Every structure is written in structure tokens, then in C-alpha cells.
């Protein structure tokens, strides 16, 4: 079995649009009182999640990618290891389409964290790195390629990207920005990394290595949420397929017109202004959960061996940014909460559930 390496010169030029592929869990709606009555209540409704995913694969993913393949549309995908595992287990025909697309150079793979919890990179980089390793492993296994790029939800200079470089040889980092155009900036790692204004000096072994900061404009980013939550899913899939095809083709026609090299400003620290109060609150709760787990269970393996704890923690780290979006409540959707506030209370209560479980484990 041969393993290929995808090496486009400029990702955003060769694959002008990006599609996000991850699966959102259905959550059980329970309050603090439910948790207090029974702290071992499941957090995720697995049965309902399976039903939703089946619908999504059959009505969205398979027809959409089949369409992109037949029309020779070039695109990249941000994909999670969890998504690949589900696809390999239940929908191998979907993986087969992806393999065909890769073979024809129509698809570029950008791994996301295994559970889609990419925000973990912002407060516990090592755990996030382990999750990235999980996805890279699945990409290797199922798609027979070795990825060289990863997805970062937020770019800032204090991210210890050298850890990915030394562990997995990753040199391309992809992010989505609210810009008109996408682009790439190549720079040595030592120019990228800064700490309180100064360059870092403790990463000598890789400091001269160049890394590529890639960014897609948000107009070329498709997370398929509108499709997933639309009543006429099949029609919306057709529509989004055409939209992706149009955006990709148009970008290929228009590219290289400007000779000016694109650039973006990268903040030194993570900047909170783009997050709402509730989102910031959730970040703090995650940090606290990470602290609790880190304190009591220094090894990540401990929670990996405990399905309840693992699901609880990693599930907490994904999806909730979607549930905290005010706009997402305006349409009829499969959201298990009635408002972002309820969703916030839910994650707050889940934190307590985690605390109770850890305390019980201790005693």
C-alpha cells in the first residue's frame, strides 16, 4: 500500500474552496438536578446521533462529493478523525468517493482535531496535538495519504507550532479569516513565534524551517450547517454543490491577476474580541475542566481508557460554539436546546458532572 504526500504549492490557489466535515452529536437534555440524581447519565444520545448521521451521509455527503467528483471541482476538506471512523464503519462508499477524488487531485485533506475540538489548541495544546495525531492516523489508514497541513481555528503567535513540526512534519497551517481573499505567507518558524514581543530562542532545532500560514476567506468556507438543518436537505445539497462549484471555478479563473503578495496580520496572543460573553464563559469552563482532569489524571490515557469520561470531555469541546450562536436558533433545526443560554447552562452543568465523577473516582 503506497502512501502519498499531497504537496500543492499554494493550497488556497489549487483548492480554492474548503468544506468542513465533522459530525455533531445529539445531546441529552438534562439539568443539574438530573446530573445530581445520577452523575452517570450519558451526555450524548448515541441512538439519535446515529439516525441524524445516517441522514446526513445519505442526503448530503455522498451526493455532494459524488457531484464534485463528476464535475471535476477542486476543493479541500477540513476533516475530523471521528468523521473518518464513522464513515469507514458505516459508509465505506463515501470514503471510496474521497479516495477517487484524491487520486484525481481534486481533494486536499486538512486534518482537524479527532473530535472536532479544534478550540482545544487555544488552551491545551498538547491534548490538541494528540487529537491531531488521531486524525492524521485515520487519514493515513483510510485515505492512504500523509497530510502536511492542519486546521487552526485561531492563528496567533504564541501557538507552539514547532510541536507539530517535529512530531508530524506539518508545515502548512490553515485558518479561516474574514478577508476578501485567501492567501499564503511563508516564513521561518523563528519569525512566526514571538513571546511578549521578542522572538523565542528555545526552538533552535527547527527555527530555520519555513512554515506556511494559509488562510481561506470565510466566503469560500462551507460548513454545510445550513444544509444539515434545512427541511429540504436534498434540494439544499444540490444548491450548495452548485455554489461550491461556482466559487471554486470562479476563483480558478480570477487567480494570479494581482501580483501583490497577500498578507495578514497575526496577533501575538489569542484575541477574544470575536467571541461573545457566553463563548468566553465556555472557554473558561473548558479550561477548568482541563485543569481538573490534568490535576487528577496527569496522563491523557487515563481518560482515553474511560469511555464515559472521554466522551464527556471531548464532546464538551466540540459543537458548543455552534449551539452558542444566536443566529442558529432562528431556523427550525435539530438543536437540542431552545436558546444559547440553555446550551450554556448545559455545559456548565456538564462541568459539574465531570467534577462529581472525578471526586467519586478519587474516593
Amino acid at each position, binding site marked *: 500500500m503506497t502512501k502519498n504526500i499531497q504537496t500543492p504549492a499554494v493550497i488556497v490557489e489549487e483548492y480554492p474552496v474548503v468544506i468542513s466535515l465533522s459530525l455533531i452529536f445529539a445531546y441529552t437534555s438534562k*439539568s*443539574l*438536578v438530573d446530573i*445530581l*440524581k445520577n*452523575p452517570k447519565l450519558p451526555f450524548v444520545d448515541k441512538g439519535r446521533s446515529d439516525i441524524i448521521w445516517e441522514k446526513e451521509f445519505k442526503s448530503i455527503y455522498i451526493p455532494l462529493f459524488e457531484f464534485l467528483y463528476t464535475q471535476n471541482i477542486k476543493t479541500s476538506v477540513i476533516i475530523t478523525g471521528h468523521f473518518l471512523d464513522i464513515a469507514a464503519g458505516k459508509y465505506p462508499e463515501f470514503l471510496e468517493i474521497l479516495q477517487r477524488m484524491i487520486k484525481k487531485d481534486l481533494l486536499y485533506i486538512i486534518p482537524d482535531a479527532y473530535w472536532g475540538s479544534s478550540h482545544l489548541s487555544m488552551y491545551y495544546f498538547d491534548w490538541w496535538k494528540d487529537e491531531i495525531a488521531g486524525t492524521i492516523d485515520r487519514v493515513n489508514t483510510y485515505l492512504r495519504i500523509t497530510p502536511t497541513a492542519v486546521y487552526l481555528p485561531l492563528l496567533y503567535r504564541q501557538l507552539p507550532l514547532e510541536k507539530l513540526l517535529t512530531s508530524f512534519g506539518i508545515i502548512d497551517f490553515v485558518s479561516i479569516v474574514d478577508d476578501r481573499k485567501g492567501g499564503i505567507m511563508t516564513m521561518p518558524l523563528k519569525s512566526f513565534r514571538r513571546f511578549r514581543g521578542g522572538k523565542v530562542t528555545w526552538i533552535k532545532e527547527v527555527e530555520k524551517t519555513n512554515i506556511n500560514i494559509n488562510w481561506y476567506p470565510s466566503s469560500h468556507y462551507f460548513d454545510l450547517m445550513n444544509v444539515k438543518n434545512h427541511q429540504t436537505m436534498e434540494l439544499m445539497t444540490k444548491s450548495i454543490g452548485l455554489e461550491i462549484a461556482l466559487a471554486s471555478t470562479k476563483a480558478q479563473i480570477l487567480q494570479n491577476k494581482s501580483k501583490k503578495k497577500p498578507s495578514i496580520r497575526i496577533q501575538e496572543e489569542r484575541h477574544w474580541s470575536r467571541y461573545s*460573553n*457566553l463563548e*468566553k*464563559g465556555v472557554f*473558561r*469552563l473548558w479550561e*477548568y475542566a482541563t485543569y481538573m482532569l490534568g490535576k487528577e489524571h496527569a496522563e491523557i490515557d487515563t481518560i482515553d481508557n474511560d469511555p464515559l469520561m472521554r466522551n464527556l470531555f471531548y464532546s464538551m469541546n466540540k459543537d458548543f460554539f455552534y449551539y452558542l450562536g444566536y443566529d442558529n436558533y432562528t431556523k427550525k433545526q435539530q438543536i437540542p436546546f431552545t*436558546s444559547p*443560554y440553555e446550551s*450554556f*447552562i448545559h455545559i*456548565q*452543568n456538564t*462541568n*459539574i458532572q465531570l467534577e*462529581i465523577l472525578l*471526586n*467519586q473516582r478519587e474516593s
Partner: protein
Amino acid sequence: MPQNPKKILILSWEILPLMEGGLGVLVRSLVDELRRQGAEVTVLTPHNTDHIDDVISLESGVHKYSKLDTPIPGLTDFVLKEFIPKGKKKYVKWPQLYSKSVVKRTTLYPNNTPIVTRAYAWAVYDWLQENGQDFDVIYGMDWMAIPAHLLLVHHNITIPFYYHINSTEVDRSGGHVHNNDYTARALYELEKKGFYLAEKIAVVSDISKQILVEDYNIPEERIYPIYNDISFEPDKIGFEHLDRGKNVLFMGRVVAQKGLFFLIETAARVLQIDSQVTFIIAGDGSTEGNLLPEIVEHVAKRKLERNIVFTGWVDSESKKQLYKTSQLFVMPSPNEPFGLTALEAIRSGVPTIASETSGFISVVPSTPTFAYYDIEAFANTILHFIQNKDARIDLLKRQQEDLSHHNWPKEVKKLLSLMEVS
């Protein structure tokens, strides 16, 4: 005037287990005790109450006086068919029924009187016509009974009408009726009209009496405090998982009347000094004036999400467990006509502190109080008791002692004697 009144007709919007706030609990306790003391009591509610003994549901009668077949959120099985002109069918949502002038104008009630209470009034009138008017007293619970009262007066039905006021619009609007929307002002006018025509008015606390005198200009001699009580059996078990040793409990609906913004600010102050304290906010929003989104947003903004936890709606079983899990109960309401939860907390062994505008203080005068807006004083009181076990034990002892003098049968007897005197 009747001597030894035996037949009492109670008009109430809710009765346990059909309840949203304290009114349902109060009516249940009142009915039980009145019956125990020999009165013959009939309760008329606008809801489907098939599962409650001896309570008559006027649901079908209310249907008759409605035109729309649109169910109202929060009032299951209750539909409106009368009073709404066909062209106004788009105004079908519950809050809109309160605020839009979609009803036929009448001089009987102030404009914007909620339409469901009008339909209920007609249903009560019909029921009395069909079942006879052989009652010594009609007893209206809160403002929802007022349109019925006015309609009966309009049709010369002269059974003495008493009110039992659990909360007024002045309480519900946090003391700012005139700054509120026109529905609140309409309810205030309605209450004024009803209270003026009432034989006598029972109120749940001295604070409520003061409000009726000052804000409604009702003569003091027509107002009688009947201090609330409930038959509450505390539980011995608690949520041991949550027992962090410093739990401060708030229980109630998340509405403006309950003073939650002050509580959040106070919590921020307390947590600056003792970060181990956990504030538990038990209860959810209500159909009207739900403040939960604002409160949650505020908690996130103040970065207090780890120490202020929300439980959502709690059933009576969980409520008892939450009491047993808490070390201190707080009631920061700017306007709390009585505050039954405070009595529940004290009975469950949780010492309680409250704003000086809480009605239950008439029954438990040893309760430490603070001005609801005085965050420093509130925070200091919490810190004093949460960090000092002996002070908590001492306070609880005094509060339970106060409560032992309070006797619900005695209060109900007082109520019955009021009816005899008139």
C-alpha cells in the same frame, strides 16, 4: 351578612399541582385548611383540572367565550375563541394577547385587560347562573379574579366578594408600574377597581398591606394580613455530590421581581473574598418577564460561571434535596409579598437571610435583613453566615423558634372570623 359562613366559592388561576409560582401552593393549603375547619369550598379554575379532586374546571365555559382555536403556550388545553375580531388573528401569541388591543372595547374593565381573564369571567358568570348562587362568600385569588368580580357586580350578583392578594402589579413590576408597558398599567387600574369594590382584602404580609394602602389608596381597616403557610415536609436526604460546604441557595422564578441582578453582583463581591462559595440558582424563567437570558449573559460577563450554577426547573422532590444540600438560603427580592420558599428553607434546616422588603419577615422577625440594593451589606451578611457555622446554627434556632409561633390553622380561623364579622 352571613354568620358562620360555610359555603365559599374560590376563584383561582392555579392550584397545586396546577401551579407556576406560590399561588398554587397557597390555594391548595387554604382549601385544605378551610375544609378541615368545616367550610364547604368550591374552586373554579380555567384549566383542565380533571386530576384534582373537588376542583371545577371552567375550561369548556372559557372555550365558549373564545373565538380563536390557537393554543396558548403555557396554558395547555386552553384556547381562546371570543373577543378577538377575525381580522386580528395574527395576534395569537400569549404575550401579544396581553399587549395588543385586539379585544372589543368595553367600559367594564380597563383597556388591555388580558383576554383570558375576561373569558374566565364570563365562564364564572355562566357557571353561577347554571349552578345557583348559594354561596356566602366569593373569594378571589389575585388580579385574575377581578374581571369576574366586575362582571358579577355589573349583573347585580351581590354575594360578598373578598380578595386574597398574593402579589400585586406593584410587586410584579418591581415597584415601577408607571414605567412599565401599558398592560402593566392596565392591570394596576384593574386591581384598583377590584380592590375598591371588595368587601375585605386578605394580604399575605404587612408589606403587602402597606402597598395596598400607599399605592392603591385602600382604607387600612379593610385590609387584613393572613400570613402564609404551607404544609411542607422536609426531606432528610440531600444532593451529597453538590455539597461543597458553602452552598448559597436561591429558589424562585427568574424574573425581575426576585432581584437576581443584585444577587449576581453580590456573588461577585463574595467571591472576591471567598472563592469556595457556590451560588445555586434553582428555578427557570416564566411565561412573562423571563430574565434567564439576561442573567446567564450577566453571569458569563462577570466570569462567574464556575461559582453560580443554574439548575433549571426543579420538581418538589429535588427542591427538598437542594434545601438539604445548602448552608444558606437567600431572598434578595426588591418586592416579595411573602416568600413561601423562605419558610420551606427554614423548615428544612437552612438559615435564611432576606431583603427587608420580603413579606415573610412578619412571621420570622429574627431574619437578618438588608436593603436589596445594598450589595456590600448583602455580601457581608452572606460571608458572615457562610463562614461561621455557629452563627448559622444560632440563626436557624431563632428562626425555627419564630416559625413555631406561626400557625396556619390559626390564620385560617382568623380569615373565617373576618367573614363572620362582616
